[in-house]
């Protein structure tokens, strides 16, 4: 039974939007349950197999003198220019 084009468009709107909302609502529920479960039962004992990836760490900390940083940055550029093929 081939429905008309308009009917198909309406179907897409209704069932598509419906699925999106159902899915994301379920996700809200699951995420809330998950977060509650983790924070309640598993405690804040962090998974620390490896240190936090470095770049992110750096993005927050800024305890290096900007002038020193500039010199080093320059040095790194030169170093790269020398070592890179």
């Amino acid at each position: 039974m081939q429905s008309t084009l308009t009917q198909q468009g309406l179907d897409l709107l209704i069932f598509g939007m419906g699925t999106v909302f159902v899915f994301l609502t379920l996700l809200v529920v699951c995420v809330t349950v998950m977060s509650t479960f983790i924070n309640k039962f598993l405690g804040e004992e962090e998974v620390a197999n490896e240190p936090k990836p470095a770049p992110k760490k750096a993005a927050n900390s800024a305890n290096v003198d900007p002038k020193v940083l500039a010199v080093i940055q320059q040095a790194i550029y030169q170093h790269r220019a020398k070592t890179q093929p």
Partner: protein
Amino acid sequence: MENFLGLWADSGLYQMQWGQITMMLICLMLLFLAIRKGFEPLLLVPIGFGGILANIPGAGLASSAVENAILGGDPAVLKGLAEIFALNTWETTQDILNAYHHAKPAVLADAKLFAAGADYQNGMLYNFYSVAIASGVAPLVIFMGVGAMTDFGPLLANPRTLFLGAAAQFGIFTTVLGAVFLSSTGIMDFSIADAAAIGIIGGADGPTAIYVASKLAPDLLGAIAVAAYSYMALVPMIQPPIMRALTTADERKIVMTQLRHVSKREKIFFPIVLLILVALILPSAAPLLGMFCFGNLMRECGVVNRLSDTTQNALINITTIFLGLSVGSKLAADKFLDPKTLGILILGVVAFAVGTAAGVLMAKLLNMVSKQKINPLIGSAGVSAVPMAARVSNKVGLEYNPQNFLLMHAMGPNVAGVIGSAVAAGVMISMVNSFLQ
């Protein structure tokens, strides 16, 4: 002398058609917008350049071996191909091209062998397209890379923002209706598959749009990708008027409570929970969201940093280059210079506008039923366009309260929008396939 004439007849200038000149100018404009105006340059530079390559007359870079054999025009070759396509009568090479485009795979296999036998080869861009897009792999790998670059912290801190990401997908489906309307009134001629592929522009997510278009409407892929990326770049112009029109000054000044700290463990579990939900509810979204979740798990699990780094750098960059050139291969004049492209461009901006509005209105709706207020300006970020839309929310917010930094709050709906449009993509592919059977 004969050779000289041959070289002249081979030259681009001799074979150039107006359509190709027009397309080259359009592609040069894309390059200008990308390089000078900063319009999503990572994609639009390769797309624009690929588009120029695709329109070089006589080079056939975007054509398959069979197309090149047909365009070559050797009578014996044409006769052989016409026989393979079971054409009893044909007048122009266009007839054979049409037969080729509608041939069944088994016939195509014969035609390919015949073209290879006559020493015709696939164009370079055609090969790139086959490997990168027709197989579906490039958009999926990009999605994996995007997953590896996405921090779900803000979303996990405030899961309600997922509703904003859901609402903004309204733009997708109303656009589908719009395309269907244009079609039923006879203004344009879009099939339901075309309409769905056009609608996904409203998802404001490049790889999703390319993935859906490659599945449902490969002919429109060029126009859809160009529209998607262009409008993503235009978000700072499209969204603010809509956001202002739908909110009061008081609403725009709402200060949201600071986001709670999200533990590493929650971030590790999230992609797995999302994947399982996809598996249970919507298998048709599994390729896109599966790769997205995989990238995010690699990022967050902390034990495969070298894989995650490569995914975010070398792998996504390599894929982007070939994805862009491949999309460019679909900017051939005969496909792009069509009234449909105009329709796609108009419908695309409608999709963005409706999605923006729906996101803002959903935020206002949530404020009616909830105590913890949401600044409706972050609703517009639900369309995706990461991180542009979130920045727009932040910027408009600062105009009304210079102390109100909405960026992190807007990142929640922003990444929710990515999930939302991937879900929408899954639904549409699944439903359109069932319509067509």
